[in-house]
């Protein structure tokens, strides 16, 4: 449970970091790098979220005997 709450802050941190990095890169005239950074951040977070969603579905499956 604690690890899950940590994940919320982790995702928020990555999001803010990616936003700042994109802004800095945009201001220094490297907009395509900024897009790449955004895409990478979203991919990393998506992997974490999907793993957690998998645990949720497994839990629901065991509780409601959905096989």
């Amino acid at each position, binding site marked *: *449970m604690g690890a*899950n*709450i940590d*994940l*919320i*802050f982790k*995702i*928020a941190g*990555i*999001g*803010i970091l*990616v*936003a700042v990095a*994109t*802004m800095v890169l945009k201001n220094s005239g490297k907009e395509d790098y900024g897009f790449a950074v*955004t895409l990478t*951040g*979203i991919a990393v*977070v*998506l992997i974490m*979220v999907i793993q*957690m*969603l998998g*645990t*949720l*579905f497994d*839990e*629901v*499956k065991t*509780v*409601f*005997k*959905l096989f």
Partner: protein
Amino acid sequence: MDILQISGIALTGAVLAVVLKQKSPPMAVLLSITVGVVIFLMVLGKIGAIVDVLRQLSERADISSIYLGTLLKIIGIAYIADFIAQICRDADQGAFATKVELAAKIMVLVLAVPIVVAVLQALLRLVP
């Protein structure tokens, strides 16, 4: 007091999602998924306890486990489908949400058909 914990998580998540929404909306959607999953996982243990009680009651009342099993499966499908549909709606994809709900309805109908058939057969047995 789990409800205080859940309220705290929801409030923190809401503030963080609003901050993220300005700069990168996809990240805000992912954050809202995470908050939803965390709260759901906290509640799921208690749902399991309720389901166990229901199961014991149905055993004591000699109700066939097929009926309760089907009922629980339908509830599980409804929970998951509703969760995903709401996330899709939050992400401004109302069409996906409607499709997930339609799929869930069809799945529920498929599960419910044997029970409907059993009822009809019982009725036919009554008619001479």
